[in-house]
């Protein structure tokens, strides 16, 4: 499907690019948000990425999926913006002690909107690389090799960071749950 629209763009039909924007803008934005943690900057980065993708569409050889190629551009644009403004979170990993036994399924007890808010809040608190890899691997369901390509990391690095990210996600979820519980009580 993508190839058809890419061909049309390359043949001079600029409007065909709208399809690609509509299809990939939200996940591109999620990627940019993982890195930049700022709505305004993320929107700008995604805009820049789409413009760059359009200008370099001829260079896309189709060896990888279009989405992989585009997301790599989004990552690059977002990283370029972080160089202007250091936003990388150092975030220390919270302890795992005293896990609440009662909260066997924390999220299922919450409303859908609340769940989304909490998950995004956790990802916002996580270091850029970790939240980026979690989103790529679990939300977009890219495999390790593609994830590595998009993030510009080695496959072994991706595995290590993903492992760390899962642990951090869990810890942050638990700490948020505890805070919520305290507020309610």
């Amino acid at each position, binding site marked *: 499907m993508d190839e058809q629209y890419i061909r049309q763009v390359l043949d001079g039909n600029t409007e065909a*690019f709208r399809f690609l924007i509509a299809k990939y803008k*939200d*996940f591109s934005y999620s990627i940019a948000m993982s890195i930049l943690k700022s709505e305004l900057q993320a*929107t700008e980065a*995604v805009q820049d990425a789409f413009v760059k993708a359009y200008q370099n569409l001829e260079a896309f050889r189709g060896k990888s999926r279009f989405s992989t190629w585009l997301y790599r551009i989004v990552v690059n644009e977002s990283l370029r913006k972080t160089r202007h403004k250091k936003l990388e979170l150092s975030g220390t990993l919270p302890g*795992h002690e005293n*896990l609440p036994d009662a909260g066997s399924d924390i999220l299922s007890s919450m409303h859908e909107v609340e769940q989304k808010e909490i998950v995004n809040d956790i990802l916002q608190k996580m270091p850029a690389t970790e939240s980026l890899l*979690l989103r790529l691997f*679990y939300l977009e369901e890219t495999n390790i090799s593609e994830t590595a390509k998009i993030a510009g990391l080695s496959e072994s690095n991706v595995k290590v960071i993903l492992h760390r990210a899962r642990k951090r996600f*869990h810890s942050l979820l638990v700490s948020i749950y505890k805070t919520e519980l305290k507020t309610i009580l």
Partner: protein
Amino acid sequence: MILKDELANDKVLMNMLGKSMHEITDPDFDNKVMERISMAEVRKFAEKKNLRLSWIFLIISIVLLPVSYPFILKAVGTISGGIAGDYLQNFSEFLFPVGIILISVIVLLQIDNLIQLNIRRKTI
């Protein structure tokens, strides 16, 4: 099953992160991108045109300057010779190699600039 075990399960994590998709709220986002693309296209076209013109003028000057330079100097010598005599004629002889070197340096610098501009355009 305790929470830790559940989170270790990829499916649970996938389910949770499925809720983390951000959506661009600006309804005009697509139009803004398309507008920027059109502007970039116009700029790219203008740059391409200017670059082509620069190469053409450079080539013309490379061909014409060495051909016309002796005539220009001769003409200057003839006009000024009548006024200042031998002094200016000697000055013209001195000016000839200096002018050649100066023109060569300018042309080489211009070629270097244009090549760099071409490379930069291709790598962007």
